[in-house]
């Protein structure tokens, strides 16, 4: 079904549950998450460690480690990618969906030049055979991500580039197959703040220019505000709130979102006293039943021991909290 501005959904997560089987127990990384990303939309998964945000990103990119078990559906343009095999799978992985990682060095093989790695992707996923054409496309992409002297970058090895340049290069690689969806897993966390601003700016520009959809993963609400149209707040594997960036940041509905915004120190406003959230994050091996935030929530009630469904309280703004049960539709 089309969203508020008539855009078709490109990615849909339906009751997505992901578990890791480890020697110390089963880690419930993602629990029953349902979410829609539309064309040309950037959605931010915001959460702290253990929220499951990175796991979801990896799942969509089909990059989960072998001890992960996925149930539920990940629909890319209607097709369930968790069930893809063989030829169909290779047409999806690394082609329709691309991923950028926190550590750009993780994207690259230190033994090959940037040029060699990019041409691999371009040849394989775009089927371009002509060497000159491949080079032209690569240089074009490197220019697009703002790298001066693309010819030199093509000939360089990953260790010869600085952190910022390498991250730009990894964005170029991610764009090589002409993907429809770009997943960015904390791409600026390791960068200095001025570099971060450059990269976020770049991603916003690329999103506009290329009409990409983005699934952006971060723990920083400020970063989410800079880059994303919509924000989904995750906590201990569950989706607690979801809506447009403005709605979630200016009018947070879930107690966790509210508290999170209150406990972040600000550089652009004077904060007298920072509120903090008492307690610690739950153990992902032993998640408590019901709402995962209940033990730390000061508005908790008895009903919270049963996880409430996501209710659409305002147009496009959903929240999973007993406070709002019975207020909205869907």
């Amino acid at each position, binding site marked *: 079904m089309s969203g508020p501005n008539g855009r078709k959904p490109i990615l849909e997560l339906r009751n997505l549950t992901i578990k890791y089987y480890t020697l*110390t127990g089963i*880690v419930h*990384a993602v629990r029953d998450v349902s979410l829609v990303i539309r064309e040309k939309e950037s959605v931010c998964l915001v959460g702290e*460690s*253990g929220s*499951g945000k990175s796991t979801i990103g990896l799942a969509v990119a089909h990059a989960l480690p*072998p*001890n992960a078990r996925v149930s539920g559906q990940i629909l890319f343009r209607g097709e369930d990618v968790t069930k893809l095999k063989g030829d169909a799978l290779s047409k999806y992985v690394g082609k329709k969906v691309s991923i950028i990682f926190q550590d750009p060095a993780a994207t690259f093989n230190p033994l090959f030049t940037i040029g060699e790695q990019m041409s691999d992707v371009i040849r394989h996923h775009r089927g371009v055979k002509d060497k000159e054409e491949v080079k032209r496309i690569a240089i074009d992409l490197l220019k697009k991500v703002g790298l001066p002297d693309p010819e030199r970058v093509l000939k360089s090895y990953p260790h010869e580039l600085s952190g910022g340049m390498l991250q730009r290069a990894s964005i170029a690689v991610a764009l090589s197959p002409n993907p429809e969806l770009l997943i960015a897993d904390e791409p600026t966390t390791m960068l200095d703040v001025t570099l971060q601003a450059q990269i976020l700016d770049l991603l916003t520009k690329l999103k506009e220019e290329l009409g990409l959809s983005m699934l952006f993963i971060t723990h920083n609400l400020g970063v989410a505000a800079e880059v994303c149209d919509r924000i989904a707040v995750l906590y201990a594997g569950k989706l607690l709130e979801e809506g447009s960036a403005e709605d979630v940041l200016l009018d947070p509905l879930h107690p966790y979102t509210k508290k999170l915004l209150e406990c972040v120190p600000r550089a652009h406003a004077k904060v007298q006293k920072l509120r903090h959230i008492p307690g610690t994050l739950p153990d*992902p091996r032993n998640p408590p039943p019901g709402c995962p935030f209940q033990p730390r929530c000061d508005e908790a009630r008895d009903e919270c021991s049963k996880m409430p469904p996501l209710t659409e309280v305002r147009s496009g703004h959903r929240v999973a909290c007993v406070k709002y049960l019975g207020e909205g539709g869907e």
Partner: protein
Amino acid sequence: MSSPSELRIMFRMIRRNPVSMLGLIIVVAFVVVGLVAPYVLTRPDEAWGIAYNVKDRFLPPSLQHPFGTDEYGRDMFNRVLLGTRFSLMIAVGVVGLALLIGIPVGLVAGYVGGKVGTALMRITDMFLAFPPLLLAIALAATLGRGLTNTIVALAISWWPWYARLIFVQVNSIKNLPYVDAARVMGLRSVTIMFKHILPNALTPITVQAALDMGSAILEAAGLSFLGVGVPPPTPEWGLLVSMGWQSINRAWWISFFPGLAIVITVLGFNLLADAVREAMDPRLRKALIMKGV
């Protein structure tokens, strides 16, 4: 960095894999037998090589003599059994002595660094440049035969590996924040070396050393086989193999069973070593220990 919880995880991984379980069983069996052997011998005099039984020479394996008898009529089962004790002594002795020499060298070289450190490591490198077994043979030949001499010769050819291992560990640990914290607290260098750095540097080494015992046994057997290790009548496995060599055609069992003992024991250590190495592989561990993403 190892911690007690990681040891627990290692055990779990070993339990899961039948092959590594086998290694663990063999190693444990080896240690137990080595400890109790002198006290459970049925024919102790023959085992120690004091008694001879000329009328029972070259008897093939039977119920009375499960491993047969040798050219002096001595029961091979008892001899191999007692040989376990000697192998254990050698294993512990060699590795222990090598650690005793190598750890201080590596520790000081790593912590002090600079010219002293470089000098110490160059000496270590010189030792490492020799093919280890050749060095051991040369040393053993110079020192003469004997259990202690064998242990010393092997330890001298071995300590550089541990010195190098500790050196690397210490080099990376000394830059960690908790060492900085110790310096900021005003602790003396010696205190920092022994209280903070050494315990953390040792963990990967101790596991490695325990598993090296298998190789020590093999090398000692080699030395004895060549005649520069443990002298007769001590029933060291390598020596037993070499003594049975001349009669290999008429009495295969004299060399066979001690040789089998060597193979099984060393195999056990190697299987266990593989399992431990796998368990310590950070990538595998990460995937298995994930505390949530």
